[in-house]
């Protein structure tokens, strides 16, 4: 029973595969200690292709993946637990949301926010892009963010508002605990957000493909945000199987990115109305059923009357739960339930003097 790996389980062009099998090369053992010239003479494949096949099959460290790094060794769950506990999540300023997500947006995972129009998906992304840069003495990651915008709904002035609110908040906390102020400024926050504007799905694919090199060049990046991964895939896509294939491949490269560089991936998705026979039409996340499996954690943001709710719909480690939140001038905040505080929040007209709930 040969325990060697068959050649056809490697990414080799079909025409080369047939030449290899007809020449009698079936398992990796056959190609051991063979020079490209010999292989080319025997099978009639071009010299460069022979070199690539030998490089692919024979060097144990090289496997079929895109980058030539060795396959990750088996890690015991204990080390994984230590690693998971050592990576602090990205805290947002709404305590309810943080507790629901288990401390904040976790690293090494794909978190997806699906939401109806105007419920605050873009606000959430901007809030996370700013929160990732909170200095470490306040429990932040002091990292940078990559913001990929496909919808064109990114208004830099809004980012300035959120950044200002966060900077004031941090300085306020610094004063209380006697740290040095000015650790974080609006300029440092703005220069920490790397912005890509993708006009169609091909540019999005290209950006995602080049992200590993980009992150290697900017090691401080801790979160990649894609605002509305659905926008370019929802209209004028005639071939649905191509769409699903592209989406699954992109999801796999996202999760590879997340685990390889220990960063968080945050996606937003739109909602669409589903007319299923029998029940009345209801809102479901866009991009169909098969996309749902791609994200590790899925949070559905929806309206109930005047209130905005976040519903943890899918999570490997947290129970299903819902928490209200609100969008203020300073960004995404908790709705603190004792009424006194709630009402004056609403009527306060001047945006800048908005009091933040200390998280």
């Amino acid at each position, binding site marked *: 029973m040969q325990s060697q790996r068959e050649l056809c389980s490697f990414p080799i062009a079909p025409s080369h595969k047939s030449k290899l099998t007809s020449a009698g090369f079936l398992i990796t053992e056959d190609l051991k200690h063979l020079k490209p010239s010999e292989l080319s003479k025997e099978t009639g494949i071009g010299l460069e292709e022979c070199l690539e096949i030998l490089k*692919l099959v024979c060097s144990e460290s090289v496997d079929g993946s895109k980058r030539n790094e060795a396959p990750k060794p088996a890690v015991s769950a204990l080390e994984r637990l230590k690693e998971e506990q050592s990576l602090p999540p990205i805290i947002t300023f709404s305590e309810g949301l943080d507790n629901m997500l288990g401390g904040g947006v976790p690293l090494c995972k794909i978190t997806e926010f699906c939401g109806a129009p105007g419920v605050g998906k873009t606000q959430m992304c901007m809030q996370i892009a700013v929160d990732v840069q909170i200095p470490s003495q306040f429990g932040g990651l002091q990292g940078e963010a990559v913001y990929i915008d496909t919808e064109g709904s990114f208004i830099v002035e809004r980012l300035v508002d959120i950044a200002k609110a966060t900077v004031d908040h941090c300085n306020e906390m610094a004063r209380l605990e006697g740290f040095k102020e000015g650790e974080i400024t609006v300029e440092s926050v703005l220069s920490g957000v790397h912005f890509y504007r993708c006009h169609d799905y091909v540019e999005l694919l290209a950006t995602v493909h080049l992200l590993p090199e980009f992150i290697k060049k900017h090691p401080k990046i801790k979160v990649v945000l894609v605002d509305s991964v659905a926008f370019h895939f929802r209209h*004028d896509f005639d071939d649905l199987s191509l769409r699903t294939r592209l989406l699954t491949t992109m999801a796999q490269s996202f999760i590879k990115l997340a685990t390889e560089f220990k960063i968080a991936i945050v996606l937003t998705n739109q909602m669409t109305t589903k007319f299923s026979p029998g029940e009345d039409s209801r809102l479901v996340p866009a991009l169909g059923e098969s996309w749902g499996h791609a994200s590790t954690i899925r949070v559905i943001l929806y309206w109930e009357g005047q209130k905005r709710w976040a519903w943890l719909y899918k999570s490997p480690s947290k129970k299903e739960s819902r928490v209200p939140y609100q969008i203020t001038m300073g960004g995404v905040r908790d709705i603190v339930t004792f009424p006194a505080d709630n009402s004056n929040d609403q009527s306060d007209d001047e945006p800048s003097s908005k009091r933040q709930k200390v998280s």
Partner: protein
Amino acid sequence: MSSKKIRRIRSLSVDVVERLTKNNLITCKDVLSRSDLELLKLLGFGIFTIHNLRQQCSLACVPVCTTGLELLTKRKQGTGQFFQTSLHGLDHVLHGGIPMGTVTEIAGPSGCGKTQFCTMLSVQATLPGNRGGLEGKVLYMDTESAFSAERLVEIAQHKFPDLYNSEEDLCRMAENVLVDNHQTCASLIKKLESLEEEVITHRIRLVIVDSIASLVRKEFSSSAGSNLVQRTNFLSRQAALLKYIAEVFCIPVIVTNQITTRFGRQATEQDEEETTEISDGYVTVALGNTWSHNVNTRLILQYLDGEKRQVLVAKSPVAPFTAFNYTIQRDGIVQDEEGAGLYAGTDPGVQQINVRTSLPFYNT
């Protein structure tokens, strides 16, 4: 950009490019939307050449990366990033007015002032820079043939008497407003596709599409079923084109939308005293949920009582839910002093709109 020809990528070797064209993979889009296995089968190269090819194509069409700071400084040098609407309360909340480079929608019941608003904005756009204008031409795409040149002139005369006191000033201003009539969706979409050189040749600084909903609701029935999907696709294509123009030329694009009646349970804590005479249905913005995604800012006009009207900021990336009263005067839309303030907003797709159902003389 994605349709970049493979031939223009110099770093690819000759036989790679030749084999690509033999399999009619011409643009980066063809290469990038195929999986590794497909490329292996079509091209017959080794896996590392395929990875290198994908790398080169990605580098060729990846958008340029800028940081938030660069964006802010670029926006500051530009001709100001917001287009003033002359409603000072609204401008204040929207950080200076209608944001440039995005699509803004003005929705409301018929006769509530949508076209008046657009006409006033057209006048505003032709003003010189120091007066808050855009010093450029306006492209007014009218599908309901509701645009009236007299109203345009009347607003200009009364709003800016010092600028437009003479006859030929008014004529010059009127020439800057190019009105385009469209009766069918096909002609509208054709125009949108050829909009780019139109904007360049006439140096257009403001694009208005009056009632994007009327043509669509005429040609696609909104009942559930297949052509609803076509309708959504058509609208999304329109939105993509408009967004592209708005961003590339950094100009405001304004579309108007109509209202529709929705049945079924509306918001739960709807305040009781707002009883509407219609059955339990409620009135909201038309064209449904997917269209609401495509719009960045949504202003809803509604009736308050007989004479007064109200503009709601229903969806905006920068402003909270705020409402301002206004009345229509000879010099266009004028904001009332009192009555400004926050309102408890909800999903812009289902925001309830008050309509004037009974005739004014009836409820004196």
